[in-house]
């Protein structure tokens, strides 16, 4: 028999919310770009130099992820819940990741899924049809049918407009069961407002999926505790079954917090592949970087990645404070930017706390 066509021949623009896009995300292992010596650079032809620079621009555009405390907490708790839920037939426990935009919720959620799927693949190397993780997002103003269609779309199950809800839900549940579902990731859960009728129906639909699918459910959304997700009877049931992990910006008050921030900056800096960048430059700018980004990992990542690309383009090949000044950050980080901390005096601990 001829093997099925490779999934890689599919549209490269498949989003993460399809099995093809998800598989590509799980498979992807970025290779660090090479840093050449001066002699090696000199030996390059113009074309080779352009290719080398382009490879490094691409590498910096998707700089590998730093393992933040939130990611570690989500991975630890999430994988533990999967283990605990494996033999449960109902009332499985779940996880909710809540926090402001730019604090790395989606990154943590998808890393949990990626880590789990890779672990399952190691356990079942021959499981060609196995899809242990499903990733969906709650569409804005979602209805229960829209949510069911999102699940169906992930699996590649197409339905005509006249298809009814039970048909779609049954197909999703049958396919998920046949492909070994273990973990369901639901992002943008803040789009669900259980105070409205359609929002309540979506919540009920999610609960129905959670009852029928032998999987652990993990939700992520913006400040979900303030959006009423835990209000009312439905909310109390969610609160009783789900562990909440807060995804917060990094703080810069205590020495431990500053050390954690510096460690993150240092990790990002070690990933840079710039020819003239001096190690330790970014770490020495930790306070400046904190003020620019308000401790939000998404903003920090954007700032450093943008600076690296600009440094390659303008040939300076190093990130400096002057270069960073040229790069605008997102509005949320800009708005939240705290004033420059006062100069430290003879009482550094107190001064640091005052600037937090």
């Amino acid at each position, binding site marked *: *028999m*001829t093997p*099925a*066509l490779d*999934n890689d021949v*599919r*549209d490269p623009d498949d989003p993460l919310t*399809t*099995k*093809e896009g998800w598989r590509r995300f799980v498979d992807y292992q970025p290779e660090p770009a090479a840093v050449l010596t001066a002699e090696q650079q000199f030996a390059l032809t113009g074309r080779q130099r352009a290719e080398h620079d382009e490879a490094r621009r691409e590498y910096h555009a998707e700089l590998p992820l730093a393992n933040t405390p939130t990611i570690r907490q989500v991975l630890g708790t999430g994988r533990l819940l999967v283990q605990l839920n494996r033999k449960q037939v109902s009332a499985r426990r779940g996880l909710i990741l809540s926090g402001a935009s730019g604090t790395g919720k989606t990154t943590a959620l998808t890393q949990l899924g990626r880590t789990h799927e890779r672990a399952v693949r190691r356990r079942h190397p021959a499981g*060609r*049809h196995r*899809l242990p993780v499903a990733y969906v997002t709650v569409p804005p103003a979602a209805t229960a049918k829209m949510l069911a269609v999102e699940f169906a*779309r992930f*699996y*590649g*199950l*197409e*339905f*005509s407009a006249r*298809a009814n809800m039970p*048909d779609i839900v*049954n*197909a*999703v*549940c*049958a*396919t998920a069961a*046949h*492909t070994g579902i273990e973990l369901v990731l639901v992002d943008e859960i803040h789009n669900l407002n259980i105070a409205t009728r359609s929002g309540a129906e979506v919540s009920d639909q999610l609960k129905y999926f959670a009852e029928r699918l032998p999987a652990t459910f993990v939700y992520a959304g913006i400040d979900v505790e303030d959006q009423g997700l835990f209000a009312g009877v439905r909310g109390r049931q969610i609160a009783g079954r789900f562990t909440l992990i807060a995804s917060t910006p990094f703080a810069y008050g205590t020495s431990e917090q500053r050390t954690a921030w510096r460690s993150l900056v240092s990790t990002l800096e070690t990933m840079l592949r710039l020819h003239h960048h001096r190690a330790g430059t970014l770490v020495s700018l930790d306070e400046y970087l904190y003020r620019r980004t308000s401790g939000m990992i998404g903003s920090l990542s954007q700032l450093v990645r943008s600076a690296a690309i600009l440094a390659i383009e303008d040939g300076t090949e190093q990130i400096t404070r002057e270069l960073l000044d040229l790069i605008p950050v997102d509005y949320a980080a800009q708005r939240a930017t705290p004033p420059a901390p006062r100069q430290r005096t003879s009482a550094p601990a107190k001064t640091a706390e005052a600037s937090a």
Partner: protein
Amino acid sequence: MHSRLPIAVAPAQHETAASYVTRLATLHGMPFGELWQQVSRPRTPESQARFIAADRLAAVTGIPEEH
């Protein structure tokens, strides 16, 4: 472009198209009519009758047309 079904099973030797599509639909918990709609096309633009379209079936299953 049609989405590909996640469970790719090949047709059995001499299996009819209708039987194969039924088997695929059952495996994915789908009503036969929904899957048939995806893997067939009308004989003529005005026709109600549909026949299996090998290219569509290949796209949905990921198994090349010659099978």
